[in-house]
């Protein structure tokens, strides 16, 4: 570990990608993630990396499809409307079982929406990125330091499972400056060789990167193979944080920026005598269902807080499975909830103290 430096989230993610041994970036400009490609355009020449500004997000996602198939650690970044366009390439990358890392610094939607912070792409990230039966490994940092750590993890898991990883942040995570420490850099030349990659069939049978399987039985087998990977992720890759849940009557479930605001709300509420805790999903897929399910045996109430009209709350309800009431509080369209608003919700749920 080196010394702490003050950095914007977007730039810190870019630096973390370099540290993770990523040397290929293909992207298209969009607010509010612009500092990320700008950082790589500046820094990649120093480390022999390739930065390419594509003609569109569609092209960018297919460039990462090509580069990932060729065996590289590869990154693209965008924001909500751009991710919709990248969905095509991402589906092929998942279908062809290739590792790649995608960053979505989410903004309000639908359509062109706004450029303000939002968590309205939860469904897209965790359930409906694109056509076909696939999942991404989805990470949601709530600080700049965590954005760095999770970027390193995203590349590692992508390679381990041969599956795309997605990091979702928002304009606050992307634009906010915080002190960060970076891990020691990984030398891309020392990463294990990908025997399946297209690098010329020298002395071996040709490698084929493909997501087409015309025989239904073949495709079903492929889908089941993918499912087995996702099931393994559900068993081994769930990450979350618990804050003051031991004695909590009410448990807030929130991720990313919203979880930070919820932490402040919890401090205020506890001063008023409410026993409130937080479960913060760090992986949105796989979702930390088990810890929520267990908590439902003790706590009286759950409150999902999101910057949307209610998306993650559906997964919270599935995990709680009717054992306890699940409430929801959300602001959307780029409006960020305040701790005071959340405290009010806690008071509504907990009654007068």
């Amino acid at each position, binding site marked *: 570990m080196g010394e702490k430096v003050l950095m914007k989230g977007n730039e810190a993610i870019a630096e973390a990608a370099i540290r993770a041994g990523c040397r290929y970036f293909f992207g298209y400009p969009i607010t509010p993630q612009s500092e990320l490609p700008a950082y790589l355009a500046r820094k990649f020449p120093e480390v022999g990396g390739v930065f390419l500004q594509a003609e569109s997000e569609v092209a960018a996602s297919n460039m990462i499809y*090509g580069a*990932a198939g060729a*065996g590289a650690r590869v990154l693209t970044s965008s924001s909500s409307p751009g991710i919709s366009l990248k969905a*095509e*390439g991402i589906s*092929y990358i998942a279908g062809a079982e290739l590792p790649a890392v995608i960053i979505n610094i989410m903004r309000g939607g639908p359509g062109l929406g706004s450029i303000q912070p939002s968590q309205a792409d939860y469904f897209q990230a965790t359930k409906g990125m694109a056509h076909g039966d696939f999942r991404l490994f989805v990470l949601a940092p709530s600080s700049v330091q965590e954005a760095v750590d999770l970027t390193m993890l995203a590349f590692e898991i992508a390679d381990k499972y041969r599956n795309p990883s997605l990091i979702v942040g928002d304009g606050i995570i992307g634009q906010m400056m915080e002190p960060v420490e970076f891990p020691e850099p990984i030398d891309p030349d020392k990463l294990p060789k990908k025997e399946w990659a297209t690098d010329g069939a*020298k002395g071996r049978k040709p490698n084929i990167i493909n997501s*087409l399987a015309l025989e239904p039985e073949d495709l079903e087998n492929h889908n089941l193979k993918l499912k087995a990977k996702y099931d393994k992720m559900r068993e081994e890759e769930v990450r979350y944080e618990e804050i003051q849940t031991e004695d909590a009557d009410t448990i807030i479930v929130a991720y990313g920026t919203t979880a930070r605001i919820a932490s402040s709300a919890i401090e205020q509420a506890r001063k008023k005598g409410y026993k409130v805790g937080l479960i913060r999903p760090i992986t949105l897929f796989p979702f930390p269902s088990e810890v929520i399910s267990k908590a439902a045996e003790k706590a009286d109430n759950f409150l999902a807080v999101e910057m949307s009209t209610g998306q993650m709350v559906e997964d919270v309800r599935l995990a709680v499975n009717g054992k306890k009431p699940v409430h929801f509080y959300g602001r959307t369209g780029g409006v960020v909830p305040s701790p005071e608003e959340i405290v009010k919700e806690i008071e509504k749920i907990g009654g007068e103290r």
Partner: protein
Amino acid sequence: MKEVAGYPESLTEKKFHYCPGCTHGIIHRIVAEVIDELGIREETIGVAPVGCSVLAYEYFNVDMHEASHGRAPAVATGIKRVHPDKFVFTYQGDGDLASIGTAEIVHAANRGELISTIFVNNAIYGMTGGQMAPTSLIDQKTTTSPFGRNAKEAGHPIKMSEMLTELTGSVYIARVSVHDPKHIKQAKKAIKKAFQIQLDGKGFAMVEVLSTCPTNWGMKPQDALEWLKDNMMEVYPLGELKTPEGVE
């Protein structure tokens, strides 16, 4: 002893799925022969399209990557940037390259991407059952232009080679045909030149190959070859549209 004929090493032994009389088989063969002759089979990565030649990855005996519809030049860009020392080509049809993939081919060419593109133009969507393509001729009947292509509604046949010639990043653009042995020889020569241009690091090269689709044109194979000669070559004149300086 000099080998004058034989089965190219750069083709697998898999039987083509192409319809009788389709010229994809000929084009596959000459591409494979050129790869053999240049001695680059083990250095080659091919990118297959979506369309009739979607299964090209089963036929070329080289590393292959199956792209999404129209995106082969983007996929090839990703591969070439990772392996600048390897030979990368795309094999695309006219629906793929001239319709859904226009942005990708234009910008790959404009960047002077060191890739080579084989563009097979048969003036129709074959795999999906004979729909009008941007390359379909005026008055050509297809399932989606049942009364013939009408320029007022559907525009004119798009001339991709002429368009790409205008870009500074493209260095070699040629249009060839495979309707008879003489033209097949010329086509092979152009493909070899295009591939050599990549190996020499000169820039983007594309060879447009006029091709037939007897099934969806509703013709006997021999009639389709005649139709190509009599109708397509007038709209899509053959020749080298752009050649780099110092290349014969």
